[in-house]
């Protein structure tokens, strides 16, 4: 190694940070180089002075200040965690209680609305057979009327010879199977008088369209006639009321709507009304009527059109026989005088667009009209 290199290594040599070979070489060089010996001595003294430099003392508050800073940090951290999790310990029971309450409410809500959903979703056959149980519940108001309506229970009272065994399909076809359900709604929820009357009207077709050959309709006819008279009376009353006071008229209609509109089984019924008009004609002892006419109306908002259509019917002298207001599909069964039919059609056209041409030619007297929208 050369002199310059040795000089550079003197610092490390001083710290004994050189290898044994380097150390030997440095010492050999130092023995012969006085310049390097002097440099080493200066270096040693410098390092000695440096090591001798007194240390400064930390201020007495330093530890406290550092720890205060740290505690602030810890406090903030804990505060953060407390904000996140501490509320759990206090509020968790409340939250659980609230959740349980919510679940219970939800369950009861589901209980009240679920049947409706189930009926809609169920296959047709199942839906047809579903209503019989309600008649089993004693209903003091109209027990006689209900009995024949329910397919399976009625034959049990009659001789098999008179009434052929009602097959499930017959039951399905018989709209009579639907008679009791409207009564169910008022039974479960106490409501003002008009609401009780509405189901009676609604149940009427079911009575009329009972299974052919059934003897009980005799009693039914009496009941039906009674109901019809009542209805006629009501219609007249409404008419006179309308002439006198339009506002009360509207109110009455509204009440009627409220009574039947959301009846759970009403929703499942609509298709039947069109399927069996013949039964009605056969069994009904009413004056001959023209073939029922079906009118399909296209409206923007079916729910909002309900009032307008009902008003159009009543203003045209028609009588509302049955209301079937479903979620999207609405059906109104009315009886209207043939001569006033064009007037009703004109009114309906103001509410919406008629989907198919209406032909009422040849109709005389009163005829059935189904308004669908």
């Amino acid at each position, binding site marked *: 190694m050369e002199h310059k290199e040795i000089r550079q290594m003197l610092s*490390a040599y001083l710290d004994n940070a050189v290898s044994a070979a380097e150390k030997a070489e440095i010492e050999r060089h130092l023995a012969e180089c006085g310049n390097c010996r002097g440099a080493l001595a200066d270096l040693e003294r410098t390092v000695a002075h440096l090591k001798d430099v007194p240390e400064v003392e930390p201020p007495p508050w330093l*530890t406290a200040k550092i720890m205060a800073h*740290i505690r602030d940090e810890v406090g903030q951290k804990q505060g953060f965690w407390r904000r996140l999790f501490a509320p759990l310990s206090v509020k968790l029971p409340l939250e659980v209680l609230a959740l349980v309450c919510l679940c219970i409410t939800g369950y009861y809500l589901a209980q009240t609305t679920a049947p409706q959903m189930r009926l809609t979703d169920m296959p047709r056959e199942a839906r047809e057979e579903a209503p019989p149980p309600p008649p089993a519940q004693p209903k003091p108001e109209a027990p006689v009327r209900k009995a024949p309506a329910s397919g399976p229970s009625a034959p049990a009272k009659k001789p098999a010879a008179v009434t052929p065994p009602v097959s499930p399909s017959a039951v399905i076809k018989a709209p009579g199977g639907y008679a009791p359900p409207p009564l169910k709604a008022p039974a479960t929820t106490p409501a003002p008088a008009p609401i009780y009357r509405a189901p009676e009207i609604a149940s009427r077709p079911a009575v009329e369209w009972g299974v052919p050959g059934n003897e009980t309709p005799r009693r039914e006819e009496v009941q039906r006639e009674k109901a019809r008279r009542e209805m006629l009376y009501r219609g007249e009353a409404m008419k006179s009321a309308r002439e006198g006071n339009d506002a009360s008229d509207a109110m009455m209609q509204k009440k009627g709507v409220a009574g039947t509109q959301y009846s759970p089984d009403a929703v499942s019924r609509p298709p039947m009304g069109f399927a069996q008009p013949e039964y009605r004609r056969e069994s009904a002892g009413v004056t001959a009527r023209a073939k029922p006419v079906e009118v399909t109306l296209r409206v923007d908002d079916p729910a909002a059109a309900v009032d307008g259509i009902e008003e159009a019917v009543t203003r045209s002298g028609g009588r509302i026989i049955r209301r079937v207001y479903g979620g999207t599909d609405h059906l109104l069964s009315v009886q209207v005088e043939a001569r006033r039919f064009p007037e009703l059609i004109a009114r309906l056209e103001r509410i919406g667009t008629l989907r198919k041409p209406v032909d009422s030619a040849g109709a005389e007297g009163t005829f059935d009209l189904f308004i669908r929208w």
Partner: protein
Amino acid sequence: MRDDRQTIIDDDAELVASWRRGELASFEALVRRHQKRMLNIAFRITGDYEDACEVVQDAFFAAYRGIDSFRGSSRFSTWLTSITVNHSRNRHRQGRAKNRNEAYSLDCPADGTGSGPAREVPSPDPSALDRVERLDLHEKLQECVKALAAEFREAIVLRDLQDFSYDEICGILQIREGTVKSRLFRAREMVKDCLKRAVGVL
């Protein structure tokens, strides 16, 4: 050369472990144990006592927050020192930048009250030279160290003032041993020359 890389015996290990478990008292004990050394390192590197105090606070705070990054591969003191050196270096850099930016401020003329930057003008006092002469050797040494470039200053502070081993310095400064040796050589030579100029004979 001491070789303590293989078997690290750390007196702080127990306190560190306890602190990791959430014992704030253990951390306080570590602060008490190391604050003086850290303050001296910071003071020699920044050259300012108040700055050094702030550096030490920041360094301990950073250590507290960054304890997860300490894996025990080195001594706790070594790890803490590297934090302190980094903070000191940053502080020194900031201080220099501040001085450079404010030295020629016209809005804030130096009035000796400390609000403005100190302007270096020849002192009219004839006794000033004598005063420098009378300066303590240690103060002269401090001035000489302060005059060094940061990398040399850090090396000489750690080795000659704080007696860290070459290995530890390698770890603290994140440089190779050859670099440590050359930096130390240069730093010592410069301090030696500085001191010779200041006091004549060493």
